[in-house]
């Protein structure tokens, strides 16, 4: 009985020493997972996930606090990529968070009063302007996050959906009619 105890203690001590050494020798700092998740997210910085930007959302996912189906701009594709990265099952979007068509903000220059509230709101600095000067959206940089629409006191910002042009047009998935339509 005591022998058995001694044998087990001996095994435990030896293994403990080995593991202790390994814990120090193979120590790992930081969490590279956050960068990988952030690389997948669309960088719209819109806040629709409930976090103030894409990096905080990535950190929340890495910690396990946030679900992977909270990002509408990423679309279904984004959910699948996150699921693959984290090794979990992909989930569909909730009813309150559905992806919308890509749009670009547009300032109606007749009504703009030059208050700079939208400039302060834009997360990617896509609005050019200064106090009491005309503001305008730099369309090439606008991510369509819609954070500028709410702060505008004169409601002069609208979202214009991007029209399809020959260089942005995509071939459609081949759909074959099994029965010809009458």
């Amino acid at each position: 009985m005591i022998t058995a105890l001694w044998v087990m203690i001996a095994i435990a001590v030896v293994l403990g020493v080995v593991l202790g050494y390994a814990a120090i020798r193979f120590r790992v700092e930081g969490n590279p997972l956050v960068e990988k998740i952030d690389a997948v997210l669309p960088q719209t910085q819109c806040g629709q996930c409930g976090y103030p930007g894409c990096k905080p959302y990535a950190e929340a996912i890495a910690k396990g606090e946030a679900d992977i189906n909270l990002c509408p701009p990423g679309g279904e594709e984004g959910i699948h990529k996150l699921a693959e990265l984290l090794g979990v099952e992909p989930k569909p979007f909730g009813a309150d968070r559905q992806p919308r068509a890509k749009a670009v903000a547009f300032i109606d220059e007749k009504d703009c009063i030059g208050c700079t509230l939208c400039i302060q709101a834009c997360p990617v600095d896509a609005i050019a302007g200064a106090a009491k000067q005309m503001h305008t959206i730099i369309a090439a940089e606008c991510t369509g996050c819609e954070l500028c629409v709410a702060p505008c006191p004169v409601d002069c910002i609208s979202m214009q959906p991007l029209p399809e042009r020959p260089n942005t047009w995509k071939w459609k998935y081949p759909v074959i009619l099994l029965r010809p339509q009458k």
Partner: protein
Amino acid sequence: MRQLYTFHGGIHPPTNKAQSTTQPIAYAPLPAELVISLHQHAGEVAKPLVEVGERVLKGQLIGAPVSGFSAAIHAPTSGTVAAIGLQIVAHPSSLPELCITLQADGKEEWAARHPVDFRTLSNAELQSHLRAQGVVGLGGAVFPSDMKLRHSIPVETLIMNGAECEPYITCDDMLMRERAAEIVRGTEILRHALNTKSVLFGIEDNKPEAIAAMQQAIDDSSLPFEVVAVPTLYPGGSAKHLIKVLTGLEVPSGKLPTDIGVQCFNVGTAYSVKRACDDGEPLIARVVTVTGNVAQPRNYEALIGTRFAELVSASGALPGTDRYIMGGPMMGLELPGANVPLVKASNCLIAASDALFPPQPAPLPCIRCTRCVGVCPAELQPQDLYWFAQSNNFGKAQEWNLFDCIECGACAYVCPSSIPLVHYYRYAKSEIRARDQEKRAADLARERHEFRQLRIEREKQEKANRLAQKERAATTANAKTVAETASVPTPAKPVVTVDDTQQLRINTALERAKAQATAARPKNTDHLTPEQLAEIAAIEARRSHIHDIAADTGADDEPPKQS
């Protein structure tokens, strides 16, 4: 006897070329109206240089190249610019592009032509001359020819592509039969520019007359060129495959022929180069085959911008035509209608009917027979690419070298299940390109966002520093005054919240804006004559039209022209 090599796969579809080679090239009748697309080359859209109502001469520059990867557009005939706007062009999306509509005046008045002696020009000078003349590759890919003259290592072999492997197309065949001397001359110019020793003409052996004509022209010119008859095999006219057959060299995936010391030009391009240099004529016309369900299939030399419907009626339209194909039956694209204009890339127009091209049966599941693998000239695995494309597995599709697919259609031709394979590959490629575009945009947005965070932090830091400095100055000043003043109670300041001041500022700004708007509005808008009202309406229409063009072509860097 020159040693020829082979490439993997290939098919032998019925050539159907005899119909359109019975008659010589005819000059297409001058149309009343020409629609010249500003995007008929690989690269960026050309910028229009003319205005509506302006009279232009034949060969005048009407569209300027906007970057290194762009080409010039010239007026194909003299006339007046009727409109500059979006028109339906030959694009698979049926979306419109910016086009210049020209009303021909019938005079065919040439602008000043500037021929050059190629012997006096260096490679770079010839490049800028060809760029100014709008010469692009006429083999189908329409790359600006000046770009194809650039090379980093010496070009050992220049190959002239007269293979024309696709069924129905005979424009290069007829061009070689009738204008062999000009082609040889153009080739000499290209050879001089590239400083190449070896020049080979690759012509498929189903064109004996063309081979004989080219050989004759070369003998007459005493130039050391060689005509090589290559075995007829589709797609042997593809540049990479012709290079493989003639030289045994393989152009690596993602690289250009000039990276291995070879360059390949279409014989039609050589003809255009000759016209551009010897005659100073820009690229304003090309030979196009009109065939299929027409009474007289033949080749026409047509002006760029001619509507296809006019060419079809010149050949005699027959009933039963339900669609038009630009290009060949393997790689051509179905046109949104016959009113689409001719572009530099149009080598053939097929009037298709169900009798000519019976509809494919409904596709069945892939049985993995690997017939497609046997015929793929790019040595890919079409059935795996199909599997990944149809399940949207784009990562795997790229791993299986999807972008090396030349979309020749040989796999779909042999598929016993009639699966539209090329359709799937095009879908997958465009999805991958769109995703790459989004990724680039996302990376840029991330950079901007991070810089913005940095900027805000920096501003906060600077503000904090300034406040700290002020406080320090204030405390030293206070220390002095506290000793002097008695304890006087400070009067209570009125509490004004930030929101109130903000709202006050907004209200005053609104008032100011309204006052400015009323000041800017014209005051004498009552009692206007009908003529004045009509003029105002016309001006407003023009302004909104230009605004639309600017919005559609994304002119976020240039203000619309106020006329």
